[in-house]
């Protein structure tokens, strides 16, 4: 009986911690089933600011494409080489870092991701 419990626990743990497959490594990808809109905002688009002094985010700025809860976006083609901070903004209110990118820093009291274009 103990072995059965241990085996069940092991199988459950595997399901909990086995990484899911990525869909496309060339794009920014984010999973959020309940989101109505996810925006990719960062240094290159002035953080979606309509007027940056008031910290408002343009609801039409760089909205990601939704496919059954998997949100994807491509970066601007003409982005100059360099380092950029970015974040994923869900429904205009919640900030998330990119879980597929280990590089992070702080911006405006939020933890954000760092993108390197080279």
């Amino acid at each position: 009986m103990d072995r059965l419990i241990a085996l069940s626990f092991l199988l459950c743990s595997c399901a909990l911690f086995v990484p899911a497959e990525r869909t496309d490594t060339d794009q920014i990808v984010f999973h959020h089933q309940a989101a109505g809109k996810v925006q990719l905002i960062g240094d290159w688009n002035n953080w979606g600011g309509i007027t940056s002094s008031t910290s408002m985010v343009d609801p039409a700025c760089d909205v990601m494409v939704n496919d059954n809860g998997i949100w994807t976006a491509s970066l601007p083609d003409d982005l100059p080489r360099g380092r950029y901070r970015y974040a994923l903004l869900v429904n205009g209110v919640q900030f998330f870092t990119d879980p597929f990118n280990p590089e992070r820093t702080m911006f405006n009291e939020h933890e954000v991701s760092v993108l390197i274009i080279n």
Partner: protein
Amino acid sequence: MIAIFLTLVLFGQQVGAVDPGQDGLDMGLFFHTTASADLQAGLRTLSADSLTVFPRGSFNSDWVQLSAEAALSYSTDSAATDIEPVSAGAFFRWPGSPWIGTGVSTGLVEPFLPGLDVPVREWRNYDVIDSSLVTIEAGGLLGFQGFWRQFGDSLSWYAVRSPWLGFGAVSWNAVREDSSRLETFNGFLDLRKVQPWFLFVKEDSRWTCLTELREMKPFGNRLFTIEMVPRFYYEEDSVQIGLTGYLRGKNRAVSGLLGVSVDVADSSQTSIAGGMDLLSEAGIAWSLFAKLENLETFYGKVSGFYRMSPAGCGGAIEMFDDSLRATATALYSPVPGVAAELSVMSNLDSNSPKPGSLLRIFGARDDFTAAVTVRWRDGLTTLGMEVSAWID
């Protein structure tokens, strides 16, 4: 002369600030309003904090790009409407060329000097510098771009950025603010197996240097790669060396890092950080992060969130030195784009920071967002509302 002109055209690139977009006239309107109330004093304290409409227009053609934006704001206190220009710009280019041109604009762009790990100068570190900003930009000659931005009469910002030179790229920035002066020179080289990134900062007479060696990947397979990044930081009274390893998932949703930084002159200034993010096959997003700054200040966080439709839930435990805080979150989304989120934070010991909780209901669809938030913190209960919309 013709050869020089053709060379300039062939190597010409777009001016950075100009997005040619589609030709023709484009008009739009952005609407934003916020309101708040102290719920302990009752809903009668509900009042509009701001109500602003931003009309925008732009015109693009082969020769010219014009754009303008204004702000119409209504104040409930004075019952008055203000109209202010937000930005305006005019850029001209040589028709038929990739981009040889120049332009001028005014608006609310903020100072930002990029760095390596963190920027040298941040957005929003400044008080609002009013709309007296004037920008003059030029670009196209051999792909080089440059601008001069004048903020009021106190702050000037000059920049020149190179195109991709085949083996690297560089940029130079200078900021003059009253009597002080800040200059940066940064860039990187591509040496195939390794990329040295460098940043030199001169603030008045004080020099700082930061370098990194990127793209060194000692291990990799079809699932993930590991990149090792050595760092070197020099300041007049401090020399720090560091090494960070990054785990990047190729076909699997996993990433991580482990890094250490040591001050050569003072070993007590050693910092260590590590973290991992993982989206599991079961649909749970796991996150683990810990750092120890100067061998004395500890922060650690572990969280897991199951984010499905129509409901999700998760939790996090954070540790600040000797204090512990736990957060539980529940999410309900009856239809895509509409969700209610309840987040409750609790101290696990008396040393923890005061907890705060919130209930938020939000909706978003296309160019429209709306949110209603109730926050509990420090014995206060506040209600906030926000609506934004973009109308073409």
